[in-house]
């Protein structure tokens, strides 16, 4: 099957139906191994056992940003090629990205209280992630209140492109401003500042969460394709009844 064939929703549905069971099993297996490695990982010499929150917080933060990145790419597909699958991909990513951003905010607060002495500060990193969460809520409101997906797709694509400005702000906020949040310690010039005994479980959990994201995204795309089929069939039915 050529890649271009996947642009056909029916063929894409067939591919999802074939891929999803394998992806689900792989996700569960990597999660089990990741949690096993987390349980055996040592405490941090400064933070103690609270470093275990990092194995949830950091992957959730990455996926919150990746979700918006995916929606930005989908927005190009909607605005430039006007392909319905691009809008389906963007709409399916929105609630999943919002959920991971919510996990990032909550686990960050729960990590901040014992580490910094506070649940929340209005520093650049925390505030820009909160803005990302609010953008996701705006996107969901746009998608879920529109009756006609063709009408909401263009507005959602424009919001995705505008909101993409926030992603580099989140990434570089800890370098551009003085923040309570620590600077980058994993993806930085000169290599990671984290000991391998803590870094490896983190990377395995990041892979597990990423697999979870794509599994849920494919399943949500399947639901959205079916929802649009239902809508189209109801319109056909209404047209036949009025004819």
């Amino acid at each position: 099957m050529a890649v271009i064939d996947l642009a056909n929703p029916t063929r894409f549905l067939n591919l999802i139906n074939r891929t999803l069971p394998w992806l689900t099993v792989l996700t569960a297996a990597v999660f089990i191994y990741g949690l096993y490695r987390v349980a055996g990982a040592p405490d941090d010499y400064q933070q103690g056992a609270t470093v275990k929150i990092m194995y949830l917080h950091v992957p959730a933060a990455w996926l919150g940003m990746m979700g918006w990145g995916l929606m930005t790419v989908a927005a190009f597909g909607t605005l430039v090629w006007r392909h319905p699958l691009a809008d389906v991909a963007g709409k399916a990513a929105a609630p999943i990205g919002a959920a991971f951003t919510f996990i990032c905010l909550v686990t960050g607060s729960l990590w901040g209280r014992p580490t910094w002495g506070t649940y929340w500060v209005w520093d650049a990193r925390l505030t820009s992630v909160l803005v990302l969460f609010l953008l996701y809520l705006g996107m969901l409101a746009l998608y879920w209140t529109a009756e006609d997906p063709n009408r909401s797709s263009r507005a959602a694509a424009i919001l995705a492109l505008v909101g993409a400005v926030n992603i580099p702000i989140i990434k570089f906020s800890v370098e551009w401003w003085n923040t309570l949040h620590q600077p980058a310690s994993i993806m930085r010039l000169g290599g990671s500042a984290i000991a391998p005994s803590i870094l490896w479980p983190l990377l395995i959990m990041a892979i597990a969460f990423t697999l979870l994201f794509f599994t849920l995204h494919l399943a949500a795309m399947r639901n959205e394709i079916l929802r649009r089929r239902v809508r189209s069939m109801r319109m056909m039915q209404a047209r036949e009844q009025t004819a």
Partner: protein
Amino acid sequence: MTLGPHASFIIASYIVTAFVVIAMILWIIADYATQRRILRELEARGVRRRSQNASEDTQ
């Protein structure tokens, strides 16, 4: 494995994450079941999509 004096924060983080992830999975499964049920009902009533009609016409 001991979680130290801040065990409640660590456990709360894992509970919240598990709750959100499980809620998301259940929501997607329930949505899939709903869309499949509605599609079956429409097909049982003889409603076809335009693309289905077109492919039947060409056969």
